[in-house]
C-alpha cells in the first residue's frame, strides 16, 4: 500500500500501471460512473489481451472491444443507449473474444466473496439456467448447485473473483483515497474491495476534512485504494450524478461507429489517437458542450439535453 503522498498521480501514470493481459474490472451502471477517460488513455497507450470482469461496465468494454484490446470477458449485460453494443457483439460472434455469461447478482456475488475474504458465496440465482449449464473459460470455477449442509436446501455457490485491477470513477476523493459518491453505487465499492489493486478516478479532489464533514457519502475507505487520479469529466460521454448528464449524441456516435471495424477505427483516429491526452479530448468535445451537460442541482439532468430549453 502506497503512502498518501504517493497515491495522487496523473492519468497517464495510472494507465501505465496496467500490464497487458491484466484481469480488470471497471465501475459503472449503464451510462454512469464509467471511467472512460481512463479507458481512452488505455487505448491511446495500446493495451492488449485484457481479461475483463465487470458489472455495469458496458461503455468501457464496448470501447476496448472496438480497439481490439480484449481477450476474455465475464459479461452480465451490455446495452448501449439505443440497442446492443456492436463492437462487443461482433467480437463475440467472430470469436475474437471469449465470453463467460453471468447475471448481475451472480457476478457481483463472486466479487463480494473476494471482498469479504471468503472462498465462495451461496446464491439462489443462475442455477437451473444455461448460465450454470454452459460454462466456458470459467468451467468448474463459475457456479455449481449445492445443498446447504445445515438444512439440505438446494442453492448455488459461486467462487470468489478478485480482479488484478479495479478502476472506479467516483465523485470526490481525498489524496489518501477515501471515496465519495452521490446516488446509486452499483457494484462500485464491491469491485474495489475485491480487487488486488485499486485505481480511483475522481471528479474532484477534496481535503480529508471535507470528507469527514460529509461522511454519509463516503463509500470506500482509503486503505482499499492504491492510486487516486483527478479526472474531471472522467466518465464522459457517460454521466456522474450531480455533476453532469450523459451525452446521448456522443454515445450514439460511438454506437454508430461500432457498426464496422473501419468506422470504429475512424472514431478512434479522430477522438482517441488524434487527441494527445484527455485535456485535448475535452477541448475537442468543447467547453460549451461540457458546460451544457452540467447537472441540474435538483434532477441531475442537463436541462439543455433533456428538457425543452427555451
Amino acid at each position, binding site marked *: 500500500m502506497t503512502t498518501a503522498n504517493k497515491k495522487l498521480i496523473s492519468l497517464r501514470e495510472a494507465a501505465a500501471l496496467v500490464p497487458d493481459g491484466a484481469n480488470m474490472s471497471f465501475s459503472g451502471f449503464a451510462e454512469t460512473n464509467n471511467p472512460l477517460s481512463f479507458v481512452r488513455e488505455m487505448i491511446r497507450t495500446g493495451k492488449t489481451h485484457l481479461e475483463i470482469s465487470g458489472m455495469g461496465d458496458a461503455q468501457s468494454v464496448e470501447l476496448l472491444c472496438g480497439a481490439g484490446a480484449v481477450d476474455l470477458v465475464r459479461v452480465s449485460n451490455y446495452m448501449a443507449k439505443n440497442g446492443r453494443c456492436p463492437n462487443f457483439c461482433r467480437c463475440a460472434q467472430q470469436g475474437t473474444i471469449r465470453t463467460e455469461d453471468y447475471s448481475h447478482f451472480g457476478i457481483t456475488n463472486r466479487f463480494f466473496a473476494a471482498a469479504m475474504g471468503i472462498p465462495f458465496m451461496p446464491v439462489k440465482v443462475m442455477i437451473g439456467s444455461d448460465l450454470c449449464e454452459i460454462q466456458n473459460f470459467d468451467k468448474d470455477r463459475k457456479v455449481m448447485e449445492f445443498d446447504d449442509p445445515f438444512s439440505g436446501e438446494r442453492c448455488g455457490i459461486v467462487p470468489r473473483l478478485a480482479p488484478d485491477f479495479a478502476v472506479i470513477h467516483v465523485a470526490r476523493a481525498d489524496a489518501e483515497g477515501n471515496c465519495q459518491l452521490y446516488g446509486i453505487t452499483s457494484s462500485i465499492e464491491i469491485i474495489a474491495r475485491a480487487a488486488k489493486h485499486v485505481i480511483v478516478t475522481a471528479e474532484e479532489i477534496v481535503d480529508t476534512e471535507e470528507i469527514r464533514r460529509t461522511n454519509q457519502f463516503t463509500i470506500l475507505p482509503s486503505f482499499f485504494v492504491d492510486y487516486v487520479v483527478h479526472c474531471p469529466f472522467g466518465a464522459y460521454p457517460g454521466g456522474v450524478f450531480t455533476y453532469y448528464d450523459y451525452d446521448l449524441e456522443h454515445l450514439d456516435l460511438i454506437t454508430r461507429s461500432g457498426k464496422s471495424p473501419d468506422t470504429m477505427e475512424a472514431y478512434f483516429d479522430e477522438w482517441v489517437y488524434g487527441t494527445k491526452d484527455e485535456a485535448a479530448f475535452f477541448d475537442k468535445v468543447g467547453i460549451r458542450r461540457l458546460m451544457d451537460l452540467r447537472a441540474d*442541482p435538483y434532477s441531475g439532468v442537463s436541462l439543455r439535453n433533456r428538457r425543452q430549453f427555451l
Partner: protein
Amino acid sequence: MKQTKLMTGQQAAALISDNSSILLFDGYEPVSLIRELLQQNSRGLTLYTCGLAFCAALLAACGAADHILAGCDPGSGFIPEAECTSGFTPEVLCVGKAVLKAQLAAAVNGGDHAAIPVPERLLTKAPALYREVPGVFGAGTGTAAAALHPDVAILHTARADFYGNVQLDPSADMRDADTLRLALAAKTVIVSAEQIVSDDAIRMNARCGLFEPEAVACVVEAPYGAHPTAFATRYRADEELLRAYEAKEDPAAFARQHLLSFPDQDCYLAGLGFERLISLTTNRRGEA
C-alpha cells in the same frame, strides 16, 4: 406559459445604451457581459463600483467609461484616482465602500440622501453629490450623500432559472447578499449566472435567493463568466492573466488581444482551454 427572461450576452448588452450608468459589484463581476459591451462599442458610461472592480478598469482602459464613482479607497485597486493612459481620461472619484453603499441604500429605501459622514475632500470634489447640511436632531452640521439611482446594475451570480429567480451557491457566504441587494437601487437589473437551473433547484435552495424575479430584467448563462476575476464559490482569479494586465503599458491593447478578440463567451472559454479552466476551479458545483 411564463415568459422566459433568458437572453444571450449580446442581447443583454444591447439593452444598455450609451451614456448609461452602471452599478458593478466586487467579487461578482460580469466580465463576459462587459466584454459584450465593449464589442458593441459602448460609450459615455458612468460606473458605480461597489468595491474594486476589474470591469471598471477594463471599461476605462478601452475608453468606454467617462466617469467612475468607485466604492473603494484612493490608491487601492486597478484605477488610481488619476489619469489613465488610454488617451481618454475617465473622471475617477474614490468614495469608499461605506459611502457608496449608503447612497445605494438610500435609493432602495426611497430617500433622496444618506446621512453619513463623508471625507472632507468629497465635499469639494463632488458638491453635486456630497454636502454639508445642518444637524437634524441636534445642533451643528452633518453631511449628506445623494441617493444613487444607476440605470442598470449588472452582476454575475451562481444560479438563475428562466424566470429571473437568482441565487448564490449553497456554499456561499450569504452575508454578501445584503450588499448585492443594493442592486435594487438601479432601474434595471441584468444578471449573468454560472448555471441556469430548474425551478425545482431554485425551490430546493430558496434561502440562497437574492431578489424577487420581477426585479430582474434578463438572465444570461455564462459559465466562468467572472473570469479572469474570481467567483468565490467556484473558481480562483486567473492571477497570471491579471498580473499581466496590470503590468502592461497599454492595457487597452492587452485587453483587445486577450479578452476581446473572441466573438462570444463560448469562444473565449475555448481559447482558455480545458486544462486552464479546471486548474482555476475550486468547486465544480458550488455545493456546500
